[in-house]
């Protein structure tokens, strides 16, 4: 909502096993941040500041 460029989804992993498998979801919450072919991922609930750092990492050239 704060950026037109950012889209965000919550996925019930147990209902979408294939989607979860493709993203190596072994523990939840699992966050996958995608920019083009680039992917940054982490497990666990990060504090907001660390979360945004991961988003920015995905956007680094």
């Amino acid at each position, binding site marked *: 909502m704060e950026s037109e460029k950012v*889209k965000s989804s919550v996925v*019930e992993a147990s209902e979408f096993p294939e989607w979860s498998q493709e993203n190596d979801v072994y523990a939840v919450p699992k966050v996958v941040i995608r920019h083009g072919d680039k992917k940054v991922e982490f497990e666990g609930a990060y504090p907001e500041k660390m979360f945004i750092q991961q988003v920015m990492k995905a956007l680094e050239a």
Partner: protein
Amino acid sequence: MPLIQEKDREYLQKLFADELKGDVRMILFTRLNENAGADGEPADDCPYCQAAADLSKEMEGLSDKLKVEVHDLNKDGTEATKYGVDKVPTFVIVDPKGDDHGVRFFGLPAGMEFSVLIADLMDMSKEQTRLAQPTKDSLKEIDKDVNIEVFVTPT
């Protein structure tokens, strides 16, 4: 038995009365097979769609400002194409202006995840998030498309 218990219903009605500002649209996409389990019919390929549809129906009466729509992909795929939805059940939350900000909930929001959906509805209705200012500033600077997926399980 309803999915939302009476005491939760009262709580949500009060919460929405206080917290919803503009009309917020919650659009659910399902793929229901009404004849599932009947003679010669395959089992429903979307086991959570009926529950998601029931939940949406129960949520409809919680506030005049919450506009609930349900579209079944087996009947009409027009809206699904518009919102780029190809999985079910999927909840799309749209702001009072009708703008789609790419907020999606895939699957039945059960347990604690239901409160995530409720929080999304309140934020979207107010057209503002509860993020810290530095986070908002960082997000404003983003000039390339980014997609965040958070995988959860019902707790």
